[in-house]
């Protein structure tokens, strides 16, 4: 679950990390009101996508009037598919240095890792690609947490201003604590600003929570409501169905994440464009297939559906019966191709003959068939 900048900053503040004074507003007039109080401000679009600066979605405003006009220009814009509803209006900082600081999971070491760089305020992916040595890393042993001497080494390696070292070390510890206690997947501050008065603040904030850990974070559930922006994804998740909305027109349903992913690949390979990823998991009970079809059909762009099922422990013929039952209970107006493999797959496919469902024996065949039918 990705949080908005203002939500991430709420968490950081809870852990004692300083952030600029500011308020989140949904109406441009309110931005002027906040600027009256704060003086020179920055108006920042609240949206789950990176690259806001380059896109003109973070703007300095010298006056309340300018703050209002900046907010007016931003609110209502669509950016990378997301409609911007709110802006964060924050006091502009007196910046002496901009650093990059993050905690995330390092798959290779199977542990959390702290990353720190003196190259803050710019796209860290670019820094990572061009000069990876500019990003200092410290893997955190979960048995001990980051130790003081490790943090000192991290700061030294990153080559930060020694005068800021103590303040940064303090933020590093707090960031890791927030990361750990909130079960984060990512906690990032870019830039971490050192002002000319040597105070250290999180000028921007990204925070991503491990969805699997949400069950033990009732305090974060309020953010969840706000986090989902795609209405179909939101509905799918309410029903507990792993659905990812994409921008094509071929609906994809399958059992098992790897199988579905591969089905997307097949459709793409044959020139089609998948409308979604949807995994119905083990087996293929009729009610689950029905739920899946309902969700996929919420996307009005869908012109055809590919159902790819592997009959594993549940046998192919039983799976076919489940699918038939589900489809009959719905009024489906688009073609459906069913590809089936595994235990008793041929028996399963035979059951589909004479029904509106189009059988296919291989992913390639299924992809070809559904693309053809959808174009017809």
């Amino acid at each position, binding site marked *: 679950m990705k949080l908005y900048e203002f939500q991430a900053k709420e968490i950081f503040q809870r852990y004692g990390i300083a952030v600029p004074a500011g308020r989140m507003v949904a109406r441009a007039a309110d931005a002027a009101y906040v600027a009256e109080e704060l003086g020179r401000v920055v108006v920042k679009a609240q949206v789950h996508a990176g690259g806001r600066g380059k896109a003109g979605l973070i703007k300095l405003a010298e006056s309340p009037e300018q703050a209002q006009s900046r907010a007016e220009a931003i609110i209502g814009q669509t950016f990378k598919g997301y409609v911007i509803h709110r802006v964060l209006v924050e006091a502009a900082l007196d910046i002496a240095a901009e650093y990059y600081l993050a905690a995330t*999971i390092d*798959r*290779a070491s*199977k*542990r*959390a890792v702290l990353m720190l760089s003196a190259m803050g305020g710019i796209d860290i*992916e670019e820094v*990572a*690609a061009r000069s990876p040595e500019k990003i200092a890393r410290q893997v955190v*042993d*979960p*048995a001990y947490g980051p130790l003081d001497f490790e943090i000192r080494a991290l700061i030294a390696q990153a080559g930060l201003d020694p005068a800021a070292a103590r303040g940064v070390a303090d933020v590093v510890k707090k960031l890791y604590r927030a990361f*750990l206690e909130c*079960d984060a*997947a990512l906690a990032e501050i870019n830039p971490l600003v050192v002002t000319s008065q040597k105070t250290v603040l999180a000028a921007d904030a990204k925070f991503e929570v*491990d*969805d*699997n*850990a949400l*069950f*033990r974070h009732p305090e974060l559930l309020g953010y969840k409501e706000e986090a989902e922006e795609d209405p179909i994804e939101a509905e799918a998740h309410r029903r507990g169905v*792993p659905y*990812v909305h*994409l921008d094509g027109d071929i609906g994809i349903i*399958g*059992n*098992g*994440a*790897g*199988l*579905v*992913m*591969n089905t*997307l*690949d*097949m*459709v*793409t*390979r044959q020139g089609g464009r*998948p409308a979604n*990823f949807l*995994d119905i998991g*083990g087996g293929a009970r009729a009610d689950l297939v029905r739920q899946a079809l309902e969700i996929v059909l919420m996307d009005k762009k869908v012109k055809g559906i590919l159902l790819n099922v*592997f*009959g*594993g*422990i549940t046998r192919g013929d039983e799976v076919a019966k489940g699918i038939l039952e589900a489809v009959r209970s719905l009024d489906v107006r688009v073609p459906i191709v069913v590809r089936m*493999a*595994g*235990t008793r797959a041929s028996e399963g496919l035979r059951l589909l003959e004479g029904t509106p469902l189009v059988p296919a024996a*291989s*992913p*390639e065949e299924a992809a070809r068939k559904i693309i053809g039918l959808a174009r017809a």
Partner: protein
Amino acid sequence: MAIFVGKETRLVVQGITGREGAFHTQQMKAYGTNVVAGMTPGRGGTEVEGVPVFDSVAAAVAATGANTSIIFVPAPFAADSIMEAAAAGIRLVIAITEGIPTLDVVKALRYTGERGVRVIGPNCPGAMTPGEAKVGIMPADIFRRGNIGVVSRSGTLTYEVVNLLSEAGLGVSTCVGVGGDPVIGTTFVDVLAAFQTDPQTEAVLLIGEIGGTDEETAAAYIQAQVTKPVLAFISGRSAPPGKRMGHAGAIISGSMGTPQAKVAAFQAAGVPVADTLDQLVQMAGERVRVK
């Protein structure tokens, strides 16, 4: 035994009294796996599918000499179950459970790591040595015994490969699903190392996917250490960056984990990469003599 599981496996099923645990205990027993014990706190003294249930793994190990554990415990308690198994002297823990919080897995692997205990998974289909033991949830019917090692981050996709292999008259030495999570106990490299020293395995099929750098690490390892033929396949090539395709591990973030990088790494290491699973199996057939 080819690798990890076989005739020597003495299995304890953690979470045996749950729906999944009970069903797969029956399936594994039916296949011939030596399921010696079950474990669910508070349910000690009962039986499931003829298997005695204990209150703790320690009690199960003491009574039955179990050396391997499979975990069907619900996600909030699964990491603790992994650690309990390790503390009780279990040497191999196969964690089927999906949806364990990543930081729980980090902690559990720190714990098992310092005890020299191998964990496969979590969020994996398990491991299977056809004709000897199935420790997992894979459909046994589709497997033929043979000399091809299979290792994969995906469940159903693996079944598909195995099914194609069987249809092509080829068989499997051991099939290991390492799991689709970002943090997993046993990686491609660990499995490749085991296949390399396994006399039964003559070639290895590696089913990778987008996200992370396990495939790149595996490619480097193959080039340096593996003399047996390895063939690879990468799933998720059409996935857009930043979208999580079911597997928490399968997500392209920035320049990390792209299919292009993985394919390039394998090719640079001399590992052929198939475009489709059919092609993968066909390539395998060309390299392995059928016994």
